């Protein structure tokens, strides 16, 4: 007994036990990984790429000609073949197809081909895109062998970063995953450890309360970070989630995740303190998580919300976590660049922990 008591050892033993326990708890895994992944998969596949215009080829149209060949090369146009005239007519009327093209050899000399395009009033916007694409195409085809007489137009496009749906959705889902792990996980764990007298048994050992809180915190943060890395990697390798500076970006995101998680765990401590029974934990937790889920720009940019709603959105901590995550991931911002967001999360953190210390119950 001469050896001094080792608080670190106790904290780590608790962290290890808690981590094992979390890994074996189905609800933790579902909330942290499955939910965000499902959303990411759905949005990842939905938001494949840009505008597509459906153009049907009329039955009986000539298929082996420079016009059709050229159209097939254009990304924007999706060619619909093998439909009969009736089908094409209904699809046109519904606006499912933007136009129908019919190319015929000109038997009476030049030009070599005649192309008839029929648009539909049910899909005017796509029709216009098609019109300009086709006009451009015809000009190129017709002027291929002619030297310009007045001026030559040289077009080029700046190669910008492609902002995909995943670049918006993934940080939002990550943020929400951290929020639910932080709030639900912490609330349930401390409530049930208290209720099942596990904590009482701990108190009969020399372990300090600080060690218990830190041990649990370390385990939860460790688990959430594993989840975050997993989500980021899936997003990056399967859906081209943008990580500007690669590993550095991931590390910055994980640091943000820790900050966010610490704040959210504070909510969890509060919930575990004020919940009267196990069944009141989910509703109380939902009061905290659901508004943030909907209003913090998890699915939609908060700019899209009505103006009276935006101030509420801009008051929520998850808004700032999502915002900072997106800036770091897509714009390559460093942590110092998102200090404003971090500051607001810190203010939330201080407020939350002041309340948590007041309402938290050990027994």
């Amino acid at each position: 007994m001469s050896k001094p008591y080792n608080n670190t050892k106790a904290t780590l033993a608790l962290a290890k036990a808690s981590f094992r326990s979390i890994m074996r708890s189905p609800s933790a895994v579902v909330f942290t990984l499955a939910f965000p992944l499902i959303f990411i998969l759905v949005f990842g596949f939905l938001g494949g790429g840009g505008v597509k215009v459906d153009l049907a080829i009329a039955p009986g149209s000539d298929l082996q000609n420079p016009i059709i060949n050229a159209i097939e090369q254009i990304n924007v146009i999706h060619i619909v073949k093998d439909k009969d005239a009736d089908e094409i007519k209904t699809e046109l009327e519904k606006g499912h197809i933007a136009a129908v093209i019919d190319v015929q050899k000109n038997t009476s000399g030049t030009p070599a081909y005649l192309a008839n395009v029929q648009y539909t009033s049910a899909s005017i916007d796509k029709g216009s895109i098609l019109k300009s694409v086709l006009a451009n195409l015809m000009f190129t085809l017709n002027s291929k062998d002619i030297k310009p007489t007045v001026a030559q137009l040289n077009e080029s496009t700046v190669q910008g970063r492609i902002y995909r749906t995943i670049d918006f959705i993934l940080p939002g889902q990550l943020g929400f995953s951290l929020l639910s792990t932080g709030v639900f996980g912490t609330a349930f764990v401390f409530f049930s450890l208290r209720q099942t007298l596990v904590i009482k048994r701990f108190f009969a050992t020399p372990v300090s309360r600080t060690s218990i809180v830190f041990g649990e915190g370390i385990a939860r943060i460790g688990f959430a970070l594993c989840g975050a890395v997993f989500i980021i990697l899936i997003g990056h390798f399967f859906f081209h989630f943008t990580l500007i500076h690669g590993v550095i970006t991931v590390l910055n995101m994980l640091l943000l995740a820790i900050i966010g998680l610490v704040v959210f765990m504070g909510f969890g401590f509060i919930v575990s303190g004020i919940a009267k029974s196990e069944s009141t934990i989910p509703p109380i937790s939902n009061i905290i998580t659901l508004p943030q889920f909907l209003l913090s720009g998890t699915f939609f940019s908060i700019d899209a919300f009505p103006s009276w709603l935006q101030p509420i959105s801009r008051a929520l901590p998850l808004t700032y976590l999502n915002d900072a995550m997106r800036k770091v991931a897509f714009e390559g911002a460093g942590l110092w660049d998102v200090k404003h967001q971090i500051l607001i999360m810190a203010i939330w953190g201080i407020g939350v922990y002041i309340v948590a210390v007041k309402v938290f119950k050990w027994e």
Partner: protein
Amino acid sequence: MDKTNAIISVKDLVKKYDDFTAVQGISFDVYENEIFGLLGPNGAGKTTTLEIIETLREKTSGEIIVDSYSVDKDASKIKRIIGVQLQAAGYYPNLNLVELMELFAGLYGVDVKPMEMLEKVNLQDKAKAKYKALSGGQKQRFSIATTLINSPKIIFLDEPTTGLDPQARRNLWDLIIDIRNNGTTVVITTHYMDEAEQLCDRVAFVERGEIIALDTPDNLIDNLINSGFERQKEVKKANLEDVFINLTGKEWREDN
């Protein structure tokens, strides 16, 4: 056994809750290396007294010294030299027995081999089982194993045999006697007088927060007989429990 060497000394212990006094001025000593029983009906204040000595509860007044440490000043030192089995306690969810042992080793800051601890209470076959999946007797044996992790000088067992079948109960008695024979002082509460008579070197009867008798079981029984007491019914040389054990066997059972 050196009966004069008190390892626990309780003086004038009082515990008041808002409108009710659970313990009203209890004094007793527990000697080193004895099995000391606190007996009495439910609500008599046994558990409260125990939990105050274990530093889990604040006392209202009185003085308690555990192995020369005062509960007021050296609670954390006391926690390091005692092992505590609570009447109702849970264990961390989703962990198996070995993992729980590792956790407790960390909490006590000691290095022990989990399997060796489980072997002490004959649970090595259940190493990979979850606490919840154990039978009543196994749960109690596991609880006792967790009290032994820090090689304590004293262990406290709060109704360890409540709800166990006769085999499991006798089994636990053997274990408790083993622990005492290895040099540990044992403080135990129980409702079962046969248990106290078998196990305890000395017992204290607690009633309404006061100690109404304290002596060895033999002396208490002799005193009663000397006062002229006689049992209504002639005692036979065996009782129904002996019949039960005789019929069902005393051997270890997988599910005990």
